[in-house]
């Protein structure tokens, strides 16, 4: 069995169209991606259109309001496809999932894959408005993202986990991809940072998304996401996520 075959991406409703933009918010630093993507799904009233299943996922289901839910769900509306997960991606699943997702998006002729995440900021407590950092799979994409609303460049560093693998696999496959990061608490849920990313994405997508309700419910959200944050922290330890606080070695 090849790595990619261990993952099944199932469309319950056909996801098709031109210039599709894929946004993934798998849980990691500050749950920024998870909070931002789930919020976008909710505000844009996106439809649940599919799910991702894998042998490597724990035998779990989510139950919400008496409804049985898949752990990793795909939402779709107009030209936006969003992927959200109720659990952090188990480390053995990261590589095959990344490859399968990139292949799938490539088959759909996707225009862009956007990873949303947090950049660990030890001084987060003193930062009122977290800064946005961007990195594209090609310099032209980075350029376009930087010009939009004065985002910063992600110049040097490491990106661990599914977000890093997706960028790498996208580069290898010639798929346009980008990562959008907000300065965030490393292992406390950070709705403030997520709000910044949502504002940025709303400009990028040209869709109005009001972040006020997100910031207003921040306190409750942080308490409710404590369990997911703890589980995510555990997984981040297993994939050297702390490496993101370091710089790659330079010898000259």
């Amino acid at each position: 069995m090849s790595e990619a075959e261990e993952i099944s991406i199932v469309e319950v409703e056909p996801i098709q169209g031109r210039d599709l933009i894929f946004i993934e918010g798998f849980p990691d630093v500050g749950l920024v991606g998870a909070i931002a993507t789930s919020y976008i799904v909710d505000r844009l009233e996106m439809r649940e259109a599919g799910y991702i299943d894998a042998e490597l996922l724990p035998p779990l289901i989510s139950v919400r309001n008496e409804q049985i839910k898949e752990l990793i769900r795909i939402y779709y509306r107009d030209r936006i496809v969003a992927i959200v997960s109720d659990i952090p991606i188990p480390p053995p699943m990261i590589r095959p999932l990344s490859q399968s997702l990139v292949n799938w998006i490539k088959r759909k002729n996707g225009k862009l894959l956007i990873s949303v995440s947090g950049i660990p900021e030890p001084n987060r407590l003193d930062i009122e408005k977290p800064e946005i950092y961007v990195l594209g799979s090609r310099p032209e994409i980075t350029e376009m993202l930087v010009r939009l609303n004065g985002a910063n460049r992600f110049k040097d560093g490491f990106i661990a986990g599914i977000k890093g693998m997706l960028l790498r696999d996208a580069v290898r496959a010639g798929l346009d991809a980008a990562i959008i990061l907000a300065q965030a608490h490393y292992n406390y849920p950070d709705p403030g940072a997520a709000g910044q990313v949502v504002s940025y994405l709303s400009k990028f997508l040209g869709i109005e998304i009001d972040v006020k309700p997100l910031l207003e419910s921040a306190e409750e959200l942080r308490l409710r996401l404590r369990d997911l944050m703890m589980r995510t922290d555990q997984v981040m330890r297993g994939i050297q996520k702390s490496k993101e606080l370091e710089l790659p070695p330079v010898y000259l």
Partner: protein
Amino acid sequence: MEEWRRNIWRRILEEFRRVEAEISRMEDEFFRLMREAEERSGCITPLYNVYESGDEVRLTADLPGASKEEIGLIAGEDYLRIEAPCRSPLRGGEGRRYVLHVRLPAKIDPQSVKARYKEGVLEVVARKKITGYRIRIE
């Protein structure tokens, strides 16, 4: 590949999986025990981090829904204790308290402790207690 080599590899892989499953079982046990203890006592253990540098010990704890006036902080030589009511109207959250008791990685001077509460995060900074003799370098 020869049969015996394949067998060795298979056994090594099986051993890896067994160790992985065992670690995951221990982690799950940790979460279960913590969860059950919280449910029984009605206390919430906040997420927290302890940082140790050359002359400081710094602790941050995520206490959403608490208020500055109601946070009780006790500093001992080798521990910090934080208690605070949680006012967030969550399912089963009414009347809950945050309780955190952390043993510190180094002795501190309890009178040097400074704390601030900002946007739901409590930060406590303490100077390390230094006792010893100054040695002249020759």
